[in-house]
């Protein structure tokens, strides 16, 4: 094993592999920052350039780009409350308030360092767990994935922005919007009104561009002042503070990383769920949850650590079984075919050095992203103080081009505009946009796994699947716990007030 670890590292220490990784990281950062374009697009666009080069160099290019998009996504979420993709959504909740409080540098640095630590923890656990994870993955089926999605739904209560009814309504709307298009199970066109364009469904990145970017620019145009008015709020934080924060909250980083690793291992769950789940566990386990949503640095560190570790986890089923952990891993599988690499049990025996090359790529690419990220943070932190009249047309133009570029359909521009107006109205009347997006993310996963569970195990599938039943109990307990705590606290307060 030691030999494989060293061979994996040696394969990366060629000029071609190092150059490819650097190109991938810089390219990934740019793509991540652009609205609508995430890791999947970054990797897909690189595929044609991957043939005919060293295997390690090709993987360094692809994985380096993919890893860099994670922090790129976080940047726009923190600075403008505009997530580049669904993964960055959880960063809006506390990253953006930190920016508004004049702590953009701290937030960006904490985000980069959290992602680095998460990435390293994920890579280490990937290396250690490869032989152990096979029976675990095989023990889980659609019923268990359904429970994972339901756990994601419990996050909704956290982001209701006041009224729980409105929060739930927003998530119901999100779920229903996600059902537009061809039903994945029965192939029935739903809510398409005969439109060919709608058969493909509403593109998730386009909806995000509209709900967050376009609506935020509408708000900014109406307000007429910068996101951060430097005459009122001075940028007083430093990059070093953010780095220290990530190390100070090491236990949160460790927990979030393991969560990210675990979610990454589960095929089809995805980093967007991981980020939201990490944020929810950070709130639920915090001694001072009242700081969340108002600029708590833990709300930035937890999702980034999770998403950093998620990549390591996602590699496990991809390498061990050829089952992609997510869309980006599916693209990696395509690259494997081009390189003549066959995923499966052989990867863990004959091609172990290649597996460790990927582990090293995750570590080195994360370090490169963090070094570059920390270096450019002081400049990035100035962006929110740009004048509204400069920001609005530029961001809107980029958003509309980005919406079109997502799938090359001009109708997507209309979708972005419509969702922009819907997002503005939702924000105005306090219907949580975050809940809407969470509903959209989880809808298809819930529906698909429910149908498969019913088909495989019948109506009493929970009784047939004890792990799923245990997970359901866990979901119910974690969802109910805060309410029980609150009830107890109120009872204690009432008893204290009644006492003479």
């Amino acid at each position, binding site marked *: 094993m030691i030999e494989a670890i060293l061979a994996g590292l040696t394969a990366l220490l060629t000029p071609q592999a190092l150059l490819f990784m650097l190109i991938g990281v810089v390219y990934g950062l740019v793509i991540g920052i652009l609205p609508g374009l995430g890791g999947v697009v970054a990797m897909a666009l690189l595929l044609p350039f991957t043939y005919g080069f060293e295997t390690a160099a090709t993987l360094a290019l692809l994985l380096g780009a993919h890893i860099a998009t994670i922090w790129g996504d976080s940047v726009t979420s923190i600075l403008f409350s505009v997530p580049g993709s669904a993964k960055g959504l959880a960063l809006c909740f506390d990253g953006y308030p930190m920016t508004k409080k004049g702590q953009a540098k701290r937030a960006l640095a904490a985000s980069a360092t959290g992602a680095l630590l998460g990435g390293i923890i994920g890579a280490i656990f990937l290396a250690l767990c490869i032989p152990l994870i096979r029976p675990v993955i095989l023990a889980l089926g659609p019923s268990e994935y359904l429970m994972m999605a339901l756990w994601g739904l419990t996050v909704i209560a956290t982001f209701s922005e006041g009224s729980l009814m409105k929060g739930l309504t927003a998530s119901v709307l999100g779920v229903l919007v996600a059902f537009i298009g061809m039903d994945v199970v029965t192939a029935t066109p739903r809510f398409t009104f005969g439109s060919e364009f709608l058969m493909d469904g509403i593109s998730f990145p386009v909806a995000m561009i509209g709900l967050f970017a376009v609506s935020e620019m509408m708000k900014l145009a109406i307000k007429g002042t910068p996101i951060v008015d430097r005459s009122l709020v001075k940028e007083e934080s430093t990059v070093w503070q953010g780095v220290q924060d990530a190390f100070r909250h090491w236990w949160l980083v460790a927990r979030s990383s393991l969560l990210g690793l675990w979610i990454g291992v589960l095929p089809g769950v995805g980093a967007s769920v991981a980020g939201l789940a990490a944020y929810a566990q950070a709130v639920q386990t915090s001694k001072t949850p009242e700081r969340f949503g108002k600029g708590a640095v833990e709300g930035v560190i937890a999702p980034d650590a999770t998403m950093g570790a998620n990549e390591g986890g996602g590699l496990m089923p991809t390498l061990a079984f050829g089952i992609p952990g997510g869309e980006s891993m599916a693209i990696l599988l395509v690259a494997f075919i081009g390189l003549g690499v066959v995923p499966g049990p052989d990867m863990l025996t004959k091609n172990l050095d290649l597996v460790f090359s990927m582990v090293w790529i995750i570590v080195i690419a994360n370090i490169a992203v963090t070094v570059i990220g920390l270096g450019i943070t002081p400049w990035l932190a100035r962006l929110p103080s740009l004048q509204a009249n400069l920001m*609005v047309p530029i961001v809107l133009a980029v958003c509309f081009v980005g919406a079109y570029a997502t799938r090359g359909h001009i109708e997507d521009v209309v979708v972005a505009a419509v969702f922009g107006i819907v997002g503005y109205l939702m924000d105005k*009347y306090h219907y949580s946009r975050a809940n809407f997006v969470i509903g959209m993310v989880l809808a298809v996963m819930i529906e698909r796994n429910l149908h498969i569970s019913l088909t495989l195990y019948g109506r009493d599938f929970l009784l047939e699947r004890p792990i799923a039943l245990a997970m359901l109990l866990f979901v119910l307990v974690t969802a109910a716990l805060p309410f029980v705590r609150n009830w107890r606290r109120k009872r204690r307060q009432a008893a204290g007030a009644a006492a003479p």
Partner: protein
Amino acid sequence: MKISRHAQENVASVLLLAFFAGVIVLCQDFGPRARMIPLPLAVFGIVLTLIQMAWHNFGSPEELQMDMISVQAPTIPAAETPAAPVKKPSRQGEAAAYGMIAVLLALTFAAGVMPAAFLFTAGYFMVTRYCSWRLSLVYAAVLTVSLYLLFVVALQMQPYHGLLAPLFQ
């Protein structure tokens, strides 16, 4: 005619009810499996909206203010951020924002994505008097060229040329 915030909330709820009712009607055309989740969900949406409406009109607004964060920490301290005086969005401002989106959309359809980016940014800078018309054109041109290089040249996006393109061919 000025509509109060209270009435606006009711209008929003009525629109939501209409949306959920529409979903229920459309679901009747689907098979049992295809409507297994959307149909009960739409009914749930109606129930939620009705509760929201009832609470909004007949109950205490404070009773609705509940989420997990507030449940875990009932006494939320005031925000520490020094904030600018809160200014309610004016009707004119909102109308201008909607108009801005409509103009950009119309330009995109008429002229294509890249020319629309140029025309919109240049026009916005000029209308808001952010800078002189010459500088506006320069800034817009720099942005458009950057977008073109990034999306069309580097990312190989096939640009949409717009409905007016045949006139110029």
